[in-house]
């Protein structure tokens, strides 16, 4: 239970070959194709770090987050939390193991029972896990938790609708922290909040991590939020991780064409930057995860697509060093920069250029 006793930097959560396939809809003559929401993800989250998962809607990041906690049953692969193989656990041991791993949801209004006051809502996980038994003891613990997330003790007797979005998210965080988990998976924790309030919740999460030694998996579509809060970032596209690196490395040198496009598309609140930056526009929409493209899943929209390999060979996530640094492992203390692209070196060294023009479909053909 106590993360303090373990060596920092060791792996708390480890997933191998994790997949979630939902049964798809077929028709009379066609066999249903499974929807490959998550399709073979390897992931290591170290104790005390924040691992960011970023991607656009439909990329499978939320499903992956739920699968890590077995809230959604994976169809293949393994998840090991602190040495315990979660997928082998029977219901009761799994319920007990849940004390170690909690989730913070996007919309706290939807995840809080409107007829339960805050004391009951925050106290519920304590009761479920047999902690802080006795009403007086539980009430004391709830007030302590409210203080931790910056809410007054008087909030305990009030109901969810009486609070603003930011305050409700604080209640959701207090509820997640009630059982003293080692791991918190936060799925879009600030995207439903007003801009001026988002920073309050992000700072709170940061403070709580320092104070309690928490490990976070932060799921968000906003690359700026993920970069700000995460130590390491995994970029997802259509059910798979296409790039993984330390947050600073990823920003300094994005290697996967999808990451490049994503970064160039994020608006920056600075007209000088906006006027001068080069935007790599993608054509078309995300393909259906029920019928993913062959080879590299991004090749149908990739501005760097090549006539060979891209369409017929699925690239593995592989380690790539930075130019001039030598072998990838040479840099001490740094995490590897991994990318799933056949042409990552050529993209990095500028040998390949993106095919510009967003509106001309012909422009996406290889040059």
């Amino acid at each position, binding site marked *: 239970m106590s993360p303090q006793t373990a060596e920092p930097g060791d792996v708390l959560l480890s997933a191998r070959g994790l997949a979630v396939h939902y049964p798809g809809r077929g028709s009379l003559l066609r066999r249903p194709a499974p929807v490959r929401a998550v399709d073979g993800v390897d992931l290591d989250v170290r104790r005390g770090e924040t691992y960011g998962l970023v991607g*656009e809607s439909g990329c499978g990041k939320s499903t992956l987050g739920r699968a890590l906690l077995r809230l959604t049953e994976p169809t293949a692969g393994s998840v090991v939390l602190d040495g315990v193989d979660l997928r082998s656990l029977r219901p009761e041991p799994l319920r007990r193991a849940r004390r170690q791993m909690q989730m913070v949801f996007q919309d706290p209004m939807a995840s809080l029972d409107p007829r339960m006051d805050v004391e009951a809502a925050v106290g519920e996980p304590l009761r479920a896990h047999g902690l802080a038994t006795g009403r007086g003891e539980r009430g004391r613990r709830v007030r302590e938790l409210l203080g931790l997330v910056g809410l007054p003790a008087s909030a305990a007797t009030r109901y969810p609708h009486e609070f603003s979005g930011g305050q409700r998210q604080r209640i959701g965080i207090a509820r997640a922290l009630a059982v003293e988990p080692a791991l918190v998976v936060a799925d879009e924790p600030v995207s439903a909040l007003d801009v001026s309030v988002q920073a309050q919740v992000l700072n709170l999460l940061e403070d709580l991590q320092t104070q309690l030694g928490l490990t976070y998996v932060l799921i968000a579509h906003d690359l700026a939020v993920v970069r700000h809060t995460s130590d390491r970032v995994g970029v997802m596209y259509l059910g798979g991780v296409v790039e993984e690196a330390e947050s600073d490395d990823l920003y300094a040198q994005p290697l996967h064409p999808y990451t490049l496009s994503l970064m160039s598309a994020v608006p920056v609140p600075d007209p000088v930057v906006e006027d001068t930056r080069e935007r790599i526009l993608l054509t078309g929409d995300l393909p259906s995860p029920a019928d993913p493209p062959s080879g590299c899943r991004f090749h149908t929209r990739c501005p760097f697509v090549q006539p060979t390999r891209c369409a017929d060979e699925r690239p593995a996530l592989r380690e790539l060093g930075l130019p001039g640094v030598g072998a990838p492992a040479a840099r001490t203390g740094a995490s590897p920069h991994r990318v799933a692209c056949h042409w990552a070196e050529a993209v990095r060294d500028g040998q390949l250029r993106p095919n510009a023009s967003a509106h001309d479909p012909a422009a996406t053909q290889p040059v």
Partner: protein
Amino acid sequence: MALLEVRDLSISFPGGSGRGAALSKAVDGVSFDVEAGQVAGLVGESGSGKSVTSLAVMGLLPHTARVSGSASFDGRDLLAMPERELEGVRGRDVAMVFQDPMTSLNPVVTVGTQITEVLRRHTGASRRAARDEAGELLARVGIPAPVRRLREYPHQLSGGMRQRAMIAIALACSPRLLIADEPTTALDVTIQAQVLELMGELVRERGTAMLLITHDLGVVAGLCDTVTVMYSGRVVERADRHELFARPRHRYTSGLLASVPRLDAPRGQRLQPIPGTPRDVIGWDAGCAFAPRCSAADDACRGTELPLVQDPTASGRHLLRCAHPVPDHRPEDRPDQRADQRVGDQERSA
């Protein structure tokens, strides 16, 4: 004369039910211009009155709303126009794009019919001509296989395509003014980039005037020529975009800029949130509505009404409603916000 001149627009809604119920003011004396070939940005958070403002200009508010002031489009006041006459303007001269295309497209009518309907009504085009034109419009907004898409229903299109179909409908009659209310908020960033590019092209190439309503400062920085910042129903600051982002002077504007994580800023810097929530306001007649959340607020901000005036230190036009503007031009260096962050982070409980 600007194409759209909104003057002293005020909008109230009856607060409760029954006779004599109190009116709640959503918009209070707002004025702004939208020039042809330019994008005017209206920025604010929930409750700032930005969306209600756009609905009033389009004459789309419910009948219970009390509207005063004027919105003169090419010399004609849209607010005073009879409904019949307004119907001739809406869709033809002034078009609107909403945030959520799923709720603004008719789910049981094909995309093609929804576009041709506008063309046939306003241009009197024949069925066949309207059909051809609709196909061209879909192609123009970047929808692949437009002829096939014309026969499809909104649910068969992805979110990005639906929003592009909405834009195609808005563009059908080559409107002179396009009002876009959070047009890309529901879209993914890569799709957002496509849609913003398309709208920018429209303004540059056709000289369309655009009113862009958004909460996203990044979108504003990339697209808008002038920026009007609203807070709790009033304009608190206005300048052209370079001026506003380089020298934000209202503490709400600078606070917003300091609170959003930036993709290009060095990591490890703590965000500086604005304390409280947009709901913690006092009435404008009792001073500055932002005062309860403002680190610089004192007695000068309470008790007297603050006017919107030209910033004397600005070289160009820069309007400001603040008793204690940001003295330093770099908001991130403000010491008053850095001190005692833990307290600053707490939301007030109402």
